[in-house]
Structure formats: structure tokens, C-alpha cells
């Protein structure tokens, strides 16, 4: 035994019990767990989370709200009010189902396609719109587009270079463990991100340091135009966790019930010191990658039409009806209700003023160094010159 206790016993195969354990882990990582099928029928009672009927309606409502705000962001982008939007349609179950079982003091590291998770964490439609429009109330102060977050909700703004938040979230999870807290991190990223170095470093650290992290792959089948089969030759993405000593579970990401159940179990295990879990939520991006993308270049509309059958809201309505929780009509009326609520919010938000002109000199450093102060004065002079010359910087 070495002083650190970390050295392996060399020159012999891995022990038999570890091999046996990995056989079980492989089944989870290569399988496909679902509680409710695409027709809303319960297919595995054990995978239904223990939630009340009221909570089921609440979960559904979050999914509806995500769908509604998503379509508004799309509309506002088409109107030229929002710079760019990454549509969420079809992926609401992963976002809501994974964020819902978390505690307020847990940290969430989303990607840019988790409107449902932002709402669950406490962001309102108004705040999402302020952010998307980068107006005077934008909590991120016009720093970037298509990213959302707010420290108030322990929701860390996503990076645009995909997946580079993965090892960061693992570091945050280590800090939680180090400080003796029983909180966890929940990190979302796409199938494409699993090809990046950041993913491998993140998973490796998560496994080695056994951190309280839940890592959720939103496998929506497409990294812009590149299909999952071009990301990896492995039979599943969840199986990648095993190479790092991180259990992987492959689940139906359009079944919000199973997402809730598996994330909830993984988070509780992590809280108890059981270490990280990698969850591959199999879903489908029904829309384009972003409003700047044209999926007809790389996939057929036939494929999209087929995948509509699996979309999560429809499934949830059928499930709730069969359980006698809500009729389909009642469920649909929730959508109407939120549509008109959000329409009102949109009107309010569009009337808000822009950010101040010198906003980008804030938050570069904690205290402004001399060169930032100089450049801020330069901006004032430039604005005066613009006025003298009759020039405008506005669109």
C-alpha cells in the first residue's frame, strides 16, 4: 500500500466482483428506461416517481410554460427583437423533469436549451424576456445572447461554446463536498458536447473525486447537422460514464416521469456521498438548432413528423387523462391560459428602455483599472463626436 493509498495492485486482472458489478452497470447504460410510453400508458410502475396529482399538474404546467415562452421567443426573433433563439420544442421533459426534484440550494448548470429548467428554478417569463431582449432589466446586462441564468436561483449562465461548463460544475460539486454541504450540481449538455475534451476531463474528475454531481446529456440526436452516430461509435452515450467510473443510465427523455425519478434518485445518492451519475436522456429536437439553422439541409420532414408522435406534452396529456388527473381539454386550456398571460408580459417587456451606453465597462473587473476608466471617458467623447457629426449608433 502506498502512502496515499491510491496505488492499484499491479500485474493482475480486475477483480471478479468488479467485473460483475460492471455487467449490471452496463445494462443501465445500454438499456432504455421509461415509466410512461408515447401513448401515455404506464409501462413500469417502479419507475414512476412518488409525486402527488397536484405535482403532476405542476410539472405539466412547467412544460407548457416552457413551450409557450419558446414559441414567443421564436416569434420575437422573427420580428427582429431577439438576436437569436435556440428552440426548445420537444425537449421540455428533460429540462423540467431533471430540474424539478432538486432543492433550492442545489446548483444548476444549464445549457442554452433548458427553458423548462430556468422556469422551475424560479426565473419568470418576464425575466427570460428581459434577458432575451437585453433590455435595461436584463440580469446579465447584455453580455451575450441565448444564455440565461441568475445567481438568485443558483442557476449558472451557460456558455455558448458547448459543454465547457461540465468540468466547472464538477469543481463546484467538489466544493460542496469539501465544505460538508449536502447539495448537488445538475448539469445539462447536448450529445455533441460529449465529444469535447471538457466532457472527458469533467467525467474523469467527477469519478476520481466522487463528487455530488448529476450530469444530464440532452441527447436530441443532432449537433446542428451532425447526427449522434457521427459523435460516437459507442452504442450509447451513457456508457461513456463507465470508463470514468461514473455510473451511466440511459432513459427516455421525453417521459418526464422517468426523468424525474432517475434524476431524483441520482441526486439523493449524490447527497449521501454516493458520487456522480451520468444520465443520457434520449429526446428529439423538433425544431432547428437555432433560428439561424435550416434543418431541411440535413434531415427529412418525414423524420420530424414521425418524431412528433413522441413529443413529451402530448404524452403527458394522455398519461394524465388515463390516470384521471386532468382531461385532455383541461390540459390544453392551461396552454391557452399561459399564452395570454405571456402575451401581456411581452407587451410590457417590449416597452422597457435599453441598457445604459456604458454598461459594458461594468463587471469586467471588481474594481475598474485605469485603462477601463480611460476607455469609459473615451466613450463619452465618442458620443459627443457622434452628436456633432449627426451620427447614431442605434439600429
Amino acid at each position, binding site marked *: 500500500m502506498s502512502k496515499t493509498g491510491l496505488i492499484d495492485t499491479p500485474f493482475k486482472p480486475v477483480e471478479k466482483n468488479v467485473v460483475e458489478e460492471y455487467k449490471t452497470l452496463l445494462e443501465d447504460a445500454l438499456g432504455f428506461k421509461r415509466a410512461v410510453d408515447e401513448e401515455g400508458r404506464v409501462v413500469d410502475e417502479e419507475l414512476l416517481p412518488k409525486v402527488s396529482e397536484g405535482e403532476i399538474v405542476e410539472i405539466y404546467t412547467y412544460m407548457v410554460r416552457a413551450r409557450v415562452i419558446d414559441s414567443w421567443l421564436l416569434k420575437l426573433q422573427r420580428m427582429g427583437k431577439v438576436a437569436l433563439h435556440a428552440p426548445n420544442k420537444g425537449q421540455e421533459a428533460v429540462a423540467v423533469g431533471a430540474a424539478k426534484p432538486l432543492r433550492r440550494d442545489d446548483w444548476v448548470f444549464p445549457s442554452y436549451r433548458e427553458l423548462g429548467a430556468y422556469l422551475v428554478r424560479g426565473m419568470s417569463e418576464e425575466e427570460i424576456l428581459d434577458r432575451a431582449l437585453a433590455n435595461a432589466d436584463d440580469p446579465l446586462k*447584455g453580455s451575450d*445572447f441565448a444564455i440565461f441564468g441568475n445567481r438568485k436561483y443558483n442557476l449558472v449562465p451557460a456558455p455558448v461554446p458547448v459543454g465547457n461548463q461540465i468540468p466547472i460544475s464538477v469543481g463546484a460539486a467538489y466544493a460542496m463536498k469539501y465544505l460538508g454541504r449536502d447539495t448537488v450540481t445538475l448539469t445539462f449538455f447536448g450529445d455533441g458536447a460529449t465529444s469535447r*475534451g471538457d466532457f472527458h476531463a469533467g467525467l474523469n474528475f467527477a469519478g476520481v473525486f466522487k463528487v455530488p454531481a448529476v450530469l444530464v446529456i440532452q441527447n436530441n440526436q443532432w449537433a446542428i*447537422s*451532425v447526427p449522434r452516430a457521427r459523435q460516437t461509435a459507442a452504442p450509447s452515450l451513457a456508457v461513456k460514464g463507465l470508463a470514468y467510473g461514473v455510473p451511466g443510465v440511459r432513459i427516455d427523455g421525453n417521459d418526464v416521469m422517468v426523468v424525474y425519478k432517475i434524476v431524483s434518485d441520482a441526486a439523493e445518492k449524490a447527497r449521501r456521498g454516493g458520487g456522480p451519475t451520468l444520465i443520457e436522456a434520449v429526446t428529439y429536437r423538433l425544431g432547428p438548432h437555432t433560428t439561424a439553422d435550416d434543418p431541411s439541409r440535413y434531415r427529412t420532414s418525414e423524420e420530424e413528423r414521425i418524431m412528433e408522435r413522441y413529443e413529451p406534452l402530448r404524452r403527458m396529456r394522455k398519461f394524465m387523462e388515463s390516470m384521471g388527473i386532468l382531461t385532455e381539454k383541461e390540459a390544453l386550456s392551461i396552454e391557452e391560459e399561459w399564452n395570454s398571460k405571456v402575451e401581456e408580459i411581452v407587451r410590457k417587456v417590449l416597452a422597457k428602455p435599453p441598457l445604459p451606453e456604458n454598461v459594458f465597462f461594468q463587471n469586467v473587473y471588481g474594481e475598474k483599472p485605469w485603462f*477601463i476608466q480611460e*476607455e469609459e471617458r*473615451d466613450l463619452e467623447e465618442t*458620443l459627443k463626436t457622434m452628436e456633432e457629426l449627426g451620427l447614431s449608433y442605434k439600429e
Partner: protein
Amino acid sequence: MNMVQALNTALREEMRRDKSVVVLGEDVGRRGGVFLVTEGLIDEFGEERVIDTPLTEMGIVAFAIGMAMYGLRPVAEIQFIDFIYEAFDQIVNNAAWYRFRSGGMYNVPLVIRGPCCGGIRGGMHHSQSNEPYFIHTPGLYVVMPSTPYDAKGLLKSSIRSDDAVIFLEPKSIYRTIREEVPDNDYTIPLGQARLVQEGSDVTLVTWGAMVHLAKEAAELLREKRGWSIEIIDLRTLQPWDKDMVVKSLEKTGRLVIVHEARKILGPGAEIAAYISENYIDLLRGPVKRVASYDTPYPLAHEKLYLPNLAKIYRAVTEVMQW
């Protein structure tokens, strides 16, 4: 023809001319690249030469370095140049330095190209002008065209270069500038600037999208002040064409450098320092730099953040009134 079409033509012609030229990157195949620079290449050259890769800039660049060392001429697309940092280790420590490290036995004839710079409301992760990082690295050529004609000629030279080239395409002028681009095979040598317009009062050195802003500014200064501005488009940022700049300064004695990269250690700092070190006697006033502010690229108010007409107007006025 616009710049996207010119770049597409250059790639197509080079791939037809030389079987060792391959294109790789994220979405370069069926999608044709997010800006359509590689559109249609997969139909003509197939999946083995137009390679849709897994999503990893580090993987793309390293894979391409290996190809290049073995004799291919890969052209690697970075979807947005802002995403290149994952590949930084490979670019600096390998692509740029294999020749030196191997005593000249290996070289890396690789082009890394991608859309750069701002002006399209792209936010901080779709707008960066990060050429200073590459200019600072010995062993790399750094190129940035400002017109479709130059884009075609410079990309061809870059592909034929036996060293690694960082080829930066200002996306704000991808489609806004159109001009005649000849069908024939022509190249523009790396390291050679272009005299955009002659003038006698101030030399304005610039490149990329700023060339077009500089032209507007020169017109404004002529109208309002009657000053005559000479504009030089560097085209290649490393090595930059010092001869053309010096020749111009012999005439004007005044230098203003305009670039989208931030001011601190931006290319303007190097040009200004080089001129002050070696040609101070030519100068009739301080060298001025018009650059972006030293903050991250902001989504809000990018027109105030980037060089603009008023900033150039002020800088030229200050130099003229020195």
C-alpha cells in the same frame, strides 16, 4: 460574387487541383457549414474529403495536424473563431512549432479557417477578434481578407503554404460586399498588403471589415475637413507588410491604425511600436490606434464598442492637429 462564394470557389478549385486538399469541421458536409462556405463540396468530393467531424475543435485541429504531417493539405473549419480556444494547445504547441521542434524535418501545411469578428449582434461568443493570440505565436501565418477577390486569392495561397495559416473571415462582410471575381486560378501572396486608396495627409492602416469603415471615414474627413487619407489593407497580419506602411509614411508622416481586436496588445500595438522604434523620424505626430475597448465583446451596444466613424474621426483629427 460575395466573400462566401469566393471562399467556396477557392476551396473547390484547390480540391480539384490537388487531391491532398481535404476539408473538415463541424457541419461542413450536408449543412455546407453554418455560413455555407463549404456548400456543395460534399456532393462533388464525397465524405472522405469533406469530413463532418465530431464536435470538438481540439479534435479537429489535432486530427488535421496529423493529416498535414503525413502529406495532406487539410483545411479545418472552426465554426466560429470564438470556439478555437479548445484547440489552442494544439495550434500553439504543435501546428506552429513542429517545424522548429523537429529541426525542420516535419512541417504542418494546415489552414485553420473560420468566421471572426463582430458587427452582427452575435454576442460575446460569436464576435471575437482573437487574431492577437495567433500573431503572438511564431510559426503561424495570420490572414484576414476584406474583399471577395482577396478572399479567393489569399485562401489559395494559404492552402498552398507549407506552414500553418490562421485564416480569419470577417463574417459581417461575408455577404454585404460583392465584386467581380475572376474564374481563373490566381493567388495573392501572403505578406503583401493592398493600397486601398491614395492620400497625402494620414496613413490609415487596417484590415478585414474595418477597411470598409475606413473608406467611409476617409470620405467623411475629406468632406468635413478636406483631409486626404491613404488607406492600406494589410491582408496578412503576420508577417505584415511593413514596406508598404513605411513607404506611405514617407509621404504622409501620420499613422492611424484601425482594428476590431481590442487595443491592449492588439496588432496596432505592434505596428505602432515597430514604427516608433525604427522610423520615428518619419512621424509628424503620435501613432493613434482605434480599436475595440478592453472589455469582453458585449451584445449590448456593440456599435459603441467596436471602432466606428466617430472614433476614427477623432483619432485622425488629433493626429492632424498635433
